[in-house]
């Protein structure tokens, strides 16, 4: 029905979209994190150990991994509450390394040798079911009391606080929920590739997640999702260029930043009016 190749790409696309959402949530409250790879690792290792060594059902293991990741995320968030921008980026980057090196040396989960023999439980159905639920959640969150509060913090955090928004609560929530989603993505990843090692959750994973969000646009939640799928698919579609395909992918990124520096999708693009005007201008030429 679906070729194994396409299936692989779709699954990686879905996992990447989840990762992108996990970064988007704290980012929409002004917190840029380079620790998403670390949270993914916690979710991946926890759920893998639970299913392989304890025979716990996949769904339960996923939630357990994501919850642990979320708890750790909230723990990281507290020292990070008062810092912003580049400093927060460095703090989270440091944390990502802490997690990576921990799993590199933690004997119980295989250490340097990695952790194998994970049952292949991820499939298109359960992955996309969860992704759909997440999209549904983000859709509701966007126009809710909490979503507005997060947006207000992003625009001017002092003013938001003066209007009664608790920075501590909202930021902790955003960071913790982001870590939860990253943990889910990690669980799906582990049960798809069946072998995990700490190197797959290093700095590059976090950076890649950030590329998804910046490429797709960080103003609306569809941006990171579209970004994640495109960034997953584009290098594959250049496969005929063989070893040079990443050159072309890089060129795509550069072009993108020149043409649409705020990302592919922003609030304007998502409005019907924008398309109408585009169409009219195109027609009159």
């Amino acid at each position: 029905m679906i070729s194994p190749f396409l299936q692989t790409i779709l699954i990686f696309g879905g996992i990447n979209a989840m990762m992108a959402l996990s970064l988007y949530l704290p980012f929409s409250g002004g917190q840029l994190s380079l620790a998403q790879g670390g949270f993914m690792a916690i979710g991946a290792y926890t759920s893998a150990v639970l299913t392989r060594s304890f025979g716990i059902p996949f769904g339960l293991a996923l939630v357990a991994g994501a919850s642990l990741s979320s708890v750790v995320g909230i723990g990281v968030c507290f020292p990070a509450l008062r810092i912003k921008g580049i400093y927060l980026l460095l703090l989270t980057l440091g944390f990502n390394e802490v997690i990576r090196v921990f799993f590199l040396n933690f004997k119980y989960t295989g250490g340097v040798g990695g952790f194998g023999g994970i049952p292949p439980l991820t499939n298109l159905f359960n992955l996309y079911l969860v992704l759909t639920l997440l999209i549904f959640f983000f859709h509701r969150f966007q126009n809710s009391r909490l979503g507005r509060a997060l947006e207000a913090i992003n625009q001017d955090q002092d003013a938001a606080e003066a209007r009664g928004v608790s920075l501590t609560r909202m930021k902790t929530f955003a960071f913790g929920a982001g870590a939860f989603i990253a943990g889910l993505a990690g669980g799906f990843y582990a049960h798809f590739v069946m072998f995990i090692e700490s190197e797959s959750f290093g700095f590059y994973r976090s950076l890649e997640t950030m590329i998804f969000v910046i490429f797709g646009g960080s103003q609306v939640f569809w941006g990171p999702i579209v970004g994640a799928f495109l960034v997953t698919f584009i290098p594959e579609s250049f496969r005929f260029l063989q070893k040079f395909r990443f050159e072309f992918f890089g060129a795509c990124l550069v072009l993108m930043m020149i043409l649409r520096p705020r990302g592919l999708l922003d609030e304007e693009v998502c409005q019907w009016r924008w398309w109408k005007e585009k169409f009219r201008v195109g027609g009159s030429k």
Partner: protein
Amino acid sequence: MVEGKVSSGRIEMNLEKTRPLLDIREATKTFGGFNALNKLDVKIQKGTIHAIIGPNGSGKTTLINLVSGLLKPTSGDFFFKDIKLNGLRPDRRTAMGISRTFQNIRIFNQMSTLENIMIARHCRTRSGLLDLIFRPPFKPLREEVEIRKKAEELLQFIGIFHRKDLKASSLPLGEQRLIEMAQALATEPELLLLDEPVTGMTPKEKDSVKSLIQKISKMGITVLFIEHDMRVVMDISDWITVINFGQKIAEGKPDQIQRDPVVIDAYLGKER
């Protein structure tokens, strides 16, 4: 003018009997060796319109920032309804009923006017994550409907309802100040702090803000405001505190202040 006299009468009675709504004791704020405020005592009585005036750099905005919690005092105590404010974060103070506007308008530029007001209902509403997830489809939360209704009412009260769907940044300065006032009111304050509410407005807009402040006061909200426009200050305030170099140099009713030689010296110019 008649109205001014009536309200000053009300004040005389209040000052003697009731405890102040906001009690500022020996507030001191030092910025790297410079005393922005130096042991300032101010008492704000419930139900009054209280103005703070003083030359530029005399510490007026610092005082509001200390009361609203944006800055931490170097020393001194702040009591609101006999509860000590020191150490409370700004959002807690807002929840207690202290709300403010900023001198350099700080509304959320990327949001619509209505959303700007809706955000300020945050601390008076409860709905959380679970309400969000388990709400039945196609039926907005009851609380969400209430937030919207309340916000629309406030926009009507303040007179910019026709702007509700426009982006806040696209409105003229005067209306942006009004948005901020509506935001502050949306948090249901008992004490409203206004930092130069009529700066940058046309005379006509100033008049409407003047009557707006009086209307707010009639609703039972105590107003503390900073203003440079003496006509506005003298017309609407019940009580005036004059500060200079971070210290109180005079206080009293508008007509007393106008006659006070110390004030005329420090503030209105020496040659008089």
